[in-house]
Protein backbone atom coordinates (compact mmCIF):
# COMPACT_ATOMS: atom_id res chain seq x y z
CA UNK A 1 0.00 0.00 0.00
CA UNK A 2 1.16 3.48 -0.79
CA UNK A 3 1.48 5.78 2.16
CA UNK A 4 -1.52 8.11 2.43
CA UNK A 5 -0.67 11.78 2.64
CA UNK A 6 -2.99 14.40 3.99
CA UNK A 7 -1.58 17.67 2.73
CA UNK A 8 -4.66 19.83 3.33
CA UNK A 9 -6.76 18.34 6.12
CA UNK A 10 -8.41 21.71 6.78
CA UNK A 11 -10.14 21.54 3.41
CA UNK A 12 -12.25 18.61 4.55
CA UNK A 13 -14.50 21.30 6.03
CA UNK A 14 -14.51 23.89 3.26
CA UNK A 15 -17.40 25.93 4.60
CA UNK A 16 -16.16 26.59 8.09
CA UNK A 17 -15.67 30.35 8.21
CA UNK A 18 -12.17 31.43 9.11
CA UNK A 19 -10.52 34.85 8.83
CA UNK A 20 -8.41 35.37 5.71
CA UNK A 21 -5.90 37.60 7.49
CA UNK A 22 -5.53 39.64 10.68
CA UNK A 23 -7.61 42.84 10.83
CA UNK A 24 -5.93 45.62 8.84
CA UNK A 25 -3.80 43.28 6.72
CA UNK A 26 -4.00 42.78 2.97
CA UNK A 27 -3.75 39.51 1.06
CA UNK A 28 -2.17 39.23 -2.38
CA UNK A 29 -2.63 36.15 -4.57
CA UNK A 30 -0.18 35.43 -7.37
CA UNK A 31 0.28 32.07 -9.10
CA UNK A 32 -0.03 29.58 -6.25
CA UNK A 33 1.18 32.03 -3.62
CA UNK A 34 -0.92 33.62 -0.89
CA UNK A 35 0.95 36.53 0.65
CA UNK A 36 -0.26 38.41 3.70
CA UNK A 37 0.98 41.98 3.98
CA UNK A 38 0.78 43.67 7.35
CA UNK A 39 1.26 47.13 5.90
CA UNK A 40 -0.01 48.60 2.65
CA UNK A 41 -1.21 51.99 1.43
CA UNK A 42 -3.32 53.36 -1.37
CA UNK A 43 -6.94 54.03 -2.23
CA UNK A 44 -7.72 52.74 -5.69
CA UNK A 45 -4.20 51.43 -6.04
CA UNK A 46 -2.26 48.93 -3.96
CA UNK A 47 0.97 50.32 -2.57
CA UNK A 48 3.29 47.78 -0.96
CA UNK A 49 6.60 48.05 0.83
CA UNK A 50 9.33 47.71 -1.80
CA UNK A 51 10.88 44.80 0.12
CA UNK A 52 7.66 42.78 -0.26
CA UNK A 53 7.81 42.77 -4.07
CA UNK A 54 10.12 39.74 -4.33
CA UNK A 55 7.99 37.41 -2.26
CA UNK A 56 4.94 38.38 -4.29
CA UNK A 57 6.10 37.95 -7.88
CA UNK A 58 9.85 37.26 -7.86
CA UNK A 59 10.80 40.71 -9.19
CA UNK A 60 13.82 42.30 -7.56
CA UNK A 61 14.45 46.03 -7.23
CA UNK A 62 17.81 46.91 -8.77
CA UNK A 63 19.36 50.21 -9.91
CA UNK A 64 18.15 49.45 -13.47
CA UNK A 65 14.58 48.78 -12.37
CA UNK A 66 12.28 45.98 -11.21
CA UNK A 67 13.92 42.84 -12.62
CA UNK A 68 12.97 39.22 -13.17
CA UNK A 69 15.43 36.91 -14.99
CA UNK A 70 16.66 38.99 -17.96
CA UNK A 71 13.70 41.37 -17.94
CA UNK A 72 13.95 44.78 -16.23
CA UNK A 73 11.17 47.35 -15.96
CA UNK A 74 12.59 50.86 -15.41
CA UNK A 75 11.21 52.59 -12.32
CA UNK A 76 9.50 55.97 -12.35
CA UNK A 77 7.49 58.20 -10.00
CA UNK A 78 4.33 56.22 -10.69
CA UNK A 79 5.85 52.89 -9.65
CA UNK A 80 7.96 54.07 -6.75
CA UNK A 81 5.88 56.50 -4.72
CA UNK A 82 7.04 58.56 -1.73
CA UNK A 83 4.47 59.22 1.01
CA UNK A 84 5.53 61.17 4.11
CA UNK A 85 9.14 60.33 3.44
CA UNK A 86 8.46 56.60 3.03
CA UNK A 87 8.87 54.70 -0.22
CA UNK A 88 6.09 52.48 -1.55
CA UNK A 89 5.86 50.32 -4.65
CA UNK A 90 2.63 50.63 -6.65
CA UNK A 91 1.78 47.02 -7.47
CA UNK A 92 -1.33 47.97 -9.45
CA UNK A 93 0.51 50.54 -11.61
CA UNK A 94 3.14 47.84 -12.22
CA UNK A 95 0.41 45.40 -13.27
CA UNK A 96 -1.10 47.94 -15.65
CA UNK A 97 2.30 48.61 -17.20
CA UNK A 98 2.84 44.87 -17.74
CA UNK A 99 -0.76 44.30 -18.93
CA UNK A 100 -1.21 41.91 -16.02
CA UNK A 101 -4.89 41.55 -15.11
CA UNK A 102 -6.06 41.55 -11.49
CA UNK A 103 -9.29 41.24 -9.55
CA UNK A 104 -9.78 42.89 -6.17
CA UNK A 105 -12.29 42.43 -3.38
CA UNK A 106 -11.83 45.67 -1.46
CA UNK A 107 -14.20 44.70 1.30
CA UNK A 108 -12.08 41.65 2.13
CA UNK A 109 -8.77 43.34 1.27
CA UNK A 110 -7.72 40.66 -1.20
CA UNK A 111 -5.99 41.35 -4.52
CA UNK A 112 -5.66 38.49 -6.98
CA UNK A 113 -3.09 39.00 -9.74
CA UNK A 114 -3.07 36.95 -12.95
CA UNK A 115 0.01 35.67 -14.77
CA UNK A 116 2.40 38.30 -16.14
CA UNK A 117 2.14 37.87 -19.93
CA UNK A 118 5.80 38.84 -20.53
CA UNK A 119 6.95 35.92 -18.38
CA UNK A 120 5.17 33.52 -20.71
CA UNK A 121 6.06 34.91 -24.12
CA UNK A 122 8.60 32.18 -24.88
CA UNK A 123 5.86 29.57 -24.81
CA UNK A 124 4.04 31.23 -27.68
CA UNK A 125 7.25 31.99 -29.61
CA UNK A 126 9.34 28.82 -29.42
CA UNK A 127 7.24 26.39 -27.36
CA UNK A 128 9.37 26.71 -24.22
CA UNK A 129 7.41 25.54 -21.17
CA UNK A 130 6.56 28.43 -18.84
CA UNK A 131 7.82 28.59 -15.27
CA UNK A 132 5.37 27.17 -12.76
CA UNK A 133 5.46 26.17 -9.11
CA UNK A 134 3.20 23.58 -7.49
CA UNK A 135 3.50 21.50 -4.33
CA UNK A 136 3.12 17.73 -4.49
CA UNK A 137 1.27 15.59 -1.95
CA UNK A 138 4.48 14.95 -0.02
CA UNK A 139 4.97 18.70 0.41
CA UNK A 140 7.77 18.95 -2.16
CA UNK A 141 7.77 22.04 -4.39
CA UNK A 142 7.91 21.14 -8.09
CA UNK A 143 9.13 23.83 -10.45
CA UNK A 144 9.53 23.71 -14.20
CA UNK A 145 13.27 24.25 -13.78
CA UNK A 146 13.50 21.05 -11.67
CA UNK A 147 12.34 18.99 -14.66
CA UNK A 148 15.23 20.02 -16.92
CA UNK A 149 17.28 17.05 -18.12
CA UNK A 150 14.31 14.69 -18.07
CA UNK A 151 11.34 14.04 -20.24
CA UNK A 152 8.12 14.91 -18.48
CA UNK A 153 4.48 14.12 -19.06
CA UNK A 154 2.07 16.36 -17.14
CA UNK A 155 -1.52 15.13 -17.08
CA UNK A 156 -4.40 17.00 -15.49
CA UNK A 157 -7.44 15.22 -14.11
CA UNK A 158 -10.09 15.96 -11.53
CA UNK A 159 -12.37 14.27 -9.06
CA UNK A 160 -15.46 16.15 -10.25
Amino acid at each position, binding site marked *: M*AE*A*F*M*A*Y*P*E*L*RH*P*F*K*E*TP*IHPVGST*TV*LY*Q*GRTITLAETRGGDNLLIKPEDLGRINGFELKPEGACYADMCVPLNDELLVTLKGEQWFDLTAFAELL*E*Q*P*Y*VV*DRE*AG*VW*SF*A*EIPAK*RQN*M*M*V*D*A*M*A*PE*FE*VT*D*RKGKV*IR*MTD*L*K*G*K*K*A*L*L*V*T*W*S*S*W
Partner: protein
Amino acid sequence: MWQQVYEEINDPNFVLICVAQDTGGEAAAGPIFDAANPTYIQVVDENHIISSAFNFVNVPSSVWIDEEGRIVRIDEGTYSKTHAIGEGEQAITFGNDVYTPALKDWVARGADSEFVQSAATVTGNIREHSFDQLKADAAFRLANLFRAHGQKEKTEVYWEMAKALNPDSINFIRQNLTLSEEGSAGETFMQVMGEYVAQGREYYRPLDIEQK
Protein backbone atom coordinates in the same frame (compact mmCIF):
# COMPACT_ATOMS: atom_id res chain seq x y z
CA MET B 1 -4.30 3.55 -15.70
CA TRP B 2 -1.30 5.88 -15.52
CA GLN B 3 0.47 3.89 -12.79
CA GLN B 4 0.64 0.88 -15.09
CA VAL B 5 1.97 2.98 -17.96
CA TYR B 6 4.54 4.54 -15.64
CA GLU B 7 5.73 1.11 -14.50
CA GLU B 8 5.91 -0.16 -18.05
CA ILE B 9 8.02 2.80 -19.14
CA ASN B 10 10.25 2.49 -16.06
CA ASP B 11 12.86 4.97 -17.26
CA PRO B 12 14.78 7.09 -14.70
CA ASN B 13 14.84 9.94 -17.21
CA PHE B 14 11.07 10.04 -17.52
CA VAL B 15 8.91 11.92 -15.02
CA LEU B 16 5.15 11.51 -14.81
CA ILE B 17 3.24 14.20 -12.95
CA CYS B 18 -0.49 13.79 -12.47
CA VAL B 19 -2.17 16.99 -11.37
CA ALA B 20 -5.67 17.05 -9.91
CA GLN B 21 -7.51 20.29 -10.78
CA ASP B 22 -9.52 20.25 -7.59
CA THR B 23 -10.55 23.21 -5.49
CA GLY B 24 -11.83 20.62 -3.01
CA GLY B 25 -8.17 19.85 -2.37
CA GLU B 26 -6.77 16.75 -0.75
CA ALA B 27 -10.19 15.78 0.61
CA ALA B 28 -11.60 15.51 -2.92
CA ALA B 29 -8.63 14.18 -4.87
CA GLY B 30 -6.51 12.39 -2.27
CA PRO B 31 -8.52 9.16 -1.94
CA ILE B 32 -8.64 8.75 -5.72
CA PHE B 33 -4.86 9.12 -5.92
CA ASP B 34 -4.40 6.65 -3.08
CA ALA B 35 -6.63 4.06 -4.76
CA ALA B 36 -4.15 3.95 -7.66
CA ASN B 37 -1.15 3.20 -5.40
CA PRO B 38 0.87 5.66 -7.41
CA THR B 39 4.64 6.03 -7.49
CA TYR B 40 4.60 8.97 -9.91
CA ILE B 41 4.48 12.58 -8.72
CA GLN B 42 1.02 13.55 -7.46
CA VAL B 43 -0.15 17.12 -7.19
CA VAL B 44 -3.45 18.45 -5.87
CA ASP B 45 -3.77 21.79 -7.61
CA GLU B 46 -6.61 23.71 -5.94
CA ASN B 47 -6.06 26.80 -8.02
CA HIS B 48 -5.68 25.03 -11.37
CA ILE B 49 -2.18 26.52 -11.72
CA ILE B 50 -1.18 23.94 -14.31
CA SER B 51 -4.24 24.62 -16.46
CA SER B 52 -3.39 28.33 -16.28
CA ALA B 53 0.25 27.73 -17.14
CA PHE B 54 -0.52 25.72 -20.28
CA ASN B 55 -3.86 27.33 -21.22
CA PHE B 56 -5.87 24.15 -20.71
CA VAL B 57 -9.65 24.41 -20.50
CA ASN B 58 -10.58 20.85 -19.63
CA VAL B 59 -9.41 17.64 -18.03
CA PRO B 60 -7.76 15.36 -18.85
CA SER B 61 -5.28 17.49 -20.78
CA SER B 62 -1.56 17.01 -21.04
CA VAL B 63 1.78 18.30 -22.17
CA TRP B 64 5.03 16.57 -23.13
CA ILE B 65 8.15 18.51 -22.14
CA ASP B 66 11.58 17.44 -23.36
CA GLU B 67 14.95 17.57 -21.56
CA GLU B 68 15.54 21.17 -22.61
CA GLY B 69 12.17 22.37 -21.35
CA ARG B 70 10.60 22.53 -24.78
CA ILE B 71 6.99 21.48 -25.26
CA VAL B 72 6.76 18.75 -27.92
CA ARG B 73 3.02 17.92 -27.66
CA ILE B 74 0.27 19.82 -25.91
CA ASP B 75 -3.42 20.07 -25.10
CA GLU B 76 -4.86 16.71 -26.06
CA GLY B 77 -7.62 14.79 -24.33
CA THR B 78 -5.27 12.34 -22.69
CA TYR B 79 -6.20 8.78 -21.78
CA SER B 80 -3.92 5.90 -20.96
CA LYS B 81 -6.30 3.44 -22.67
CA THR B 82 -9.88 2.93 -23.74
CA HIS B 83 -12.12 3.03 -20.71
CA ALA B 84 -15.64 1.63 -20.44
CA ILE B 85 -18.33 2.62 -17.96
CA GLY B 86 -21.13 0.07 -17.68
CA GLU B 87 -21.52 -3.17 -19.54
CA GLY B 88 -22.88 -4.55 -22.80
CA GLU B 89 -24.93 -2.26 -25.02
CA GLN B 90 -25.28 0.37 -22.30
CA ALA B 91 -21.53 0.75 -21.97
CA ILE B 92 -20.10 4.19 -22.56
CA THR B 93 -16.53 4.06 -23.81
CA PHE B 94 -14.01 6.88 -23.91
CA GLY B 95 -10.29 7.25 -24.37
CA ASN B 96 -8.14 5.44 -26.91
CA ASP B 97 -5.35 2.89 -27.26
CA VAL B 98 -2.95 4.97 -29.34
CA TYR B 99 -1.76 7.59 -26.85
CA THR B 100 0.24 5.31 -24.57
CA PRO B 101 2.21 3.66 -27.43
CA ALA B 102 2.99 7.15 -28.77
CA LEU B 103 4.21 8.22 -25.32
CA LYS B 104 6.42 5.13 -25.00
CA ASP B 105 7.87 5.76 -28.44
CA TRP B 106 8.80 9.33 -27.44
CA VAL B 107 10.41 8.27 -24.17
CA ALA B 108 12.46 5.62 -26.02
CA ARG B 109 13.43 7.60 -29.11
CA GLY B 110 13.25 11.24 -28.08
CA ALA B 111 13.44 13.76 -30.90
CA ASP B 112 13.46 10.90 -33.46
CA SER B 113 9.95 9.88 -32.43
CA GLU B 114 7.36 10.59 -35.12
CA PHE B 115 5.09 11.84 -32.31
CA VAL B 116 7.32 14.79 -31.46
CA GLN B 117 5.84 17.96 -32.92
CA SER B 118 7.71 21.01 -34.19
CA ALA B 119 7.72 24.26 -32.22
CA ALA B 120 5.47 25.76 -34.91
CA THR B 121 2.91 22.96 -34.54
CA VAL B 122 3.02 23.20 -30.76
CA THR B 123 2.60 26.97 -30.63
CA GLY B 124 -0.28 26.59 -33.09
CA ASN B 125 -1.89 24.10 -30.73
CA ILE B 126 -1.59 26.24 -27.61
CA ARG B 127 -4.88 27.88 -26.89
CA GLU B 128 -5.05 31.65 -26.89
CA HIS B 129 -4.97 33.18 -23.43
CA SER B 130 -6.38 36.67 -23.79
CA PHE B 131 -6.34 39.43 -21.18
CA ASP B 132 -9.85 38.40 -20.11
CA GLN B 133 -8.88 34.73 -19.82
CA LEU B 134 -5.90 35.63 -17.63
CA LYS B 135 -8.23 37.79 -15.57
CA ALA B 136 -10.58 34.81 -15.27
CA ASP B 137 -7.75 32.84 -13.64
CA ALA B 138 -7.26 35.66 -11.12
CA ALA B 139 -11.01 35.68 -10.35
CA PHE B 140 -11.00 31.91 -9.95
CA ARG B 141 -8.13 32.03 -7.44
CA LEU B 142 -9.89 34.75 -5.50
CA ALA B 143 -13.03 32.57 -5.37
CA ASN B 144 -10.98 29.63 -4.13
CA LEU B 145 -9.53 31.69 -1.30
CA PHE B 146 -13.04 32.63 -0.20
CA ARG B 147 -14.09 29.00 -0.49
CA ALA B 148 -11.22 27.88 1.71
CA HIS B 149 -12.31 30.46 4.27
CA GLY B 150 -15.97 29.47 4.21
CA GLN B 151 -17.39 32.49 2.37
CA LYS B 152 -19.81 30.82 0.02
CA GLU B 153 -21.43 33.99 -1.40
CA LYS B 154 -18.15 35.59 -2.42
CA THR B 155 -17.01 32.23 -3.80
CA GLU B 156 -20.01 32.19 -6.13
CA VAL B 157 -19.50 35.83 -7.17
CA TYR B 158 -15.93 35.28 -8.31
CA TRP B 159 -16.50 31.84 -9.83
CA GLU B 160 -19.28 33.41 -11.91
CA MET B 161 -16.88 36.21 -12.88
CA ALA B 162 -14.29 33.61 -13.95
CA LYS B 163 -16.83 31.75 -16.07
CA ALA B 164 -18.04 34.97 -17.71
CA LEU B 165 -14.47 36.06 -18.51
CA ASN B 166 -13.47 32.64 -19.88
CA PRO B 167 -16.59 30.85 -21.12
CA ASP B 168 -14.40 28.21 -22.81
CA SER B 169 -13.22 26.82 -19.49
CA ILE B 170 -14.97 23.55 -18.81
CA ASN B 171 -12.81 23.37 -15.70
CA PHE B 172 -14.48 26.47 -14.25
CA ILE B 173 -17.97 25.35 -15.22
CA ARG B 174 -17.62 21.92 -13.66
CA GLN B 175 -15.64 23.01 -10.61
CA ASN B 176 -18.40 25.49 -9.85
CA LEU B 177 -21.05 22.76 -10.14
CA THR B 178 -19.33 20.80 -7.38
CA LEU B 179 -21.02 23.27 -5.01
CA SER B 180 -24.48 22.35 -6.31
CA GLU B 181 -26.64 19.47 -5.16
CA GLU B 182 -26.59 17.74 -8.53
CA GLY B 183 -22.82 17.86 -8.86
CA SER B 184 -20.57 18.33 -11.89
CA ALA B 185 -22.08 15.73 -14.23
CA GLY B 186 -25.80 16.26 -13.71
CA GLU B 187 -28.53 17.85 -15.81
CA THR B 188 -27.00 21.34 -15.76
CA PHE B 189 -23.69 20.00 -16.99
CA MET B 190 -25.37 18.06 -19.83
CA GLN B 191 -27.28 21.18 -20.86
CA VAL B 192 -24.18 23.38 -20.75
CA MET B 193 -22.21 20.84 -22.79
CA GLY B 194 -24.99 20.63 -25.37
CA GLU B 195 -24.94 24.42 -25.81
CA TYR B 196 -21.14 24.46 -25.90
CA VAL B 197 -20.96 21.92 -28.72
CA ALA B 198 -23.93 23.49 -30.57
CA GLN B 199 -21.90 26.72 -30.76
CA GLY B 200 -19.23 24.82 -32.66
CA ARG B 201 -16.69 25.00 -29.85
CA GLU B 202 -14.31 22.13 -29.12
CA TYR B 203 -13.76 21.25 -25.52
CA TYR B 204 -11.01 18.87 -26.49
CA ARG B 205 -8.67 19.55 -29.34
CA PRO B 206 -8.83 16.40 -31.50
CA LEU B 207 -6.09 13.88 -30.78
CA ASP B 208 -3.53 14.23 -33.53
CA ILE B 209 -2.47 10.58 -33.52
CA GLU B 210 -3.84 8.19 -36.11
CA GLN B 211 -6.38 5.77 -34.65
CA LYS B 212 -5.90 2.26 -35.99
